[in-house]
């Protein structure tokens, strides 16, 4: 049955949207990522206007990270002080990002920036993951585990001023690295409709050197708050959040995620990361093709004030 989306102003088949939400939810449950980086391009391929896709995906990630926060809250693996600092940066980033997105939209460049941003982001993250997971797989096969990274390696980050104690993470570091990290993720959330978990998680582990046990819960809390703020700000300033589309995507997503978690527990970490890397690179390649191949019509029309 077709369903009419009041904000996107188009008819879609609700089963396809439910399926997309479910598939992305499955993958996000399996790999432990929000899945915004997959959902936004999928919606754009389906024909949803890119600004509606970006804004509505943010609300989808709010729902999926809610479940994550609850699970980690109960296990007491959330560093609230760290999440607070990240969030302070995140809210600044989101406000600026939503404003930037409005400017880009008026200049007619939002579509290009979203696509090009995804190509760069997915290419970099996918490439790094592919490289890392292959090394890990090769090491596992030859029987020599990779040398563990030094746990307390001091880098330039530890020389910054305004230090603060993060009890849960057993860290005493400057507030600037998490503040800047939160800020970058906030901008990405607003412009590209991603939660930013795939940047936040490695950055917390390798740059901030937080214990892995609290990384997931803390990043879920940060993503929950930032995407909730993004949803409200996009709705208020760009009118691009489609609640009907969001509802169907979320229903599919939360169910898919539960099955994804079960499927993910049967695969090994390196194998999971290799699969995810291939998926990420494939989506990036598809978007790159869209930018490079001569379009069917080099003109495009945007109707104002509808």
């Amino acid at each position: 049955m077709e369903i009419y989306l009041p904000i996107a102003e188009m008819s879609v088949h609700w089963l396809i949207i439910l399926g997309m939400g479910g598939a992305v939810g499955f993958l996000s449950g399996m790999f432990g990522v929000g899945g915004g980086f997959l959902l936004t391009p999928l919606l754009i391929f389906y024909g949803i206007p890119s600004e509606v896709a970006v804004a509505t995906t943010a609300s989808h990630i709010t729902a999926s990270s809610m479940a994550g926060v609850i699970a980690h809250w109960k296990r007491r693996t959330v560093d609230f002080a760290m999440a607070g600092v990240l969030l302070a940066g995140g809210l600044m980033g989101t406000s600026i990002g939503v404003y930037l997105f409005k400017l880009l939209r008026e200049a007619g460049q939002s579509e290009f920036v979203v696509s090009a941003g995804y190509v760069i982001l997915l290419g970099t993250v996918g490439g790094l993951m592919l490289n890392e997971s292959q090394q890990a797989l090769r090491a596992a096969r030859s029987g020599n585990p990779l040398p563990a990274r030094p746990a307390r390696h001091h880098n330039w980050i530890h020389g910054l001023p305004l230090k603060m104690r993060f009890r849960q993470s057993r860290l005493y570091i400057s507030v600037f690295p998490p503040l800047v990290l939160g800020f970058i993720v906030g901008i990405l959330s607003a412009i590209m409709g991603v939660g930013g978990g795939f940047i936040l998680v490695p950055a917390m582990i390798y740059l901030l050197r937080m214990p892995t046990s609290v990384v997931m819960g803390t990043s879920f809390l940060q993503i929950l708050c930032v995407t909730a703020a993004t949803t409200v700000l996009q709705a208020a300033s760009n009118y691009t959040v489609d609640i009907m589309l969001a509802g169907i995507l979320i229903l599919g997503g939360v169910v898919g995620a539960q099955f994804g978690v079960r499927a993910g527990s049967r695969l090994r970490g390196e194998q999971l990361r290799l699969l995810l890397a291939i998926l990420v690179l494939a989506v990036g390649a598809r978007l790159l093709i869209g930018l490079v191949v001569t379009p069917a019509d080099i003109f495009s029309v945007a109707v104002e004030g509808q």
Partner: protein
Amino acid sequence: MRAALIAIFLALMPAAAAAENLVSGLSQDQIQITSNYTGSDLVVFGAIEQSADTEEDSETGHRDVVVVVRGPTAKMDVRRKQRIAGIWINNREITLTGMPAYYYVASTRPLDKIAPAQTLGRYQIGLDYVKPERASTHNPARAEQFRQAVVRERVRGHLFTEAPAGVEFLSYSLFRVHVPVPASAPRGQYTAEVYLFKDGVVMAAQSTPLFVDQIGLERRLFSFAHNDAFAYGVATVIMAMLLGWLSSLIFRRA
């Protein structure tokens, strides 16, 4: 402006109107977009009435009926992409104001056989003659290039249609036209115009308004999103968090 033209025309030519009178109507004067809306079919029907003494006369000339349905006008930003360093980027933008966002024309024969270009242009009949009121460029060739881009884009989206054999005659004087209105048709006031041509001259014309609107849940969601945007955003977030929380509740028990 066209409505005024038609009114003036009717006032100036009472004799012709009396000789061959046009009566037309619509299947519905309101089209409502609901959640399972996939587009709908509007039927424009009509009859050509003529007095007995002109019957012989009508045998000699060629009679044509043209039906035009125009949607509300819109402001359109038309952008042209250019390849820069191998990548296609929008680099020129022209704003066209006053183009209808929906346009349908049906006729008994191809339009160029019915009337000269000048007449079609005056009434804006046909995809070649749908013109914006204003363009943000002084170069007429460029404005035309961008106007054609709008026509192409609208034709692809089934929002602009030219049906050269779309007028169906049920009898000598009775005709009917099926006008498809897709789900993507914009909301607002439309007009259905019926023209009677004889040997390339407009003999009679009639214009009827109709409305396309969202009703029910869609209408309420749309106005909620636009009139109370902040609360709408908050409501979306609350829905998302509730669904996320419910899912972890349900699946933990299962």
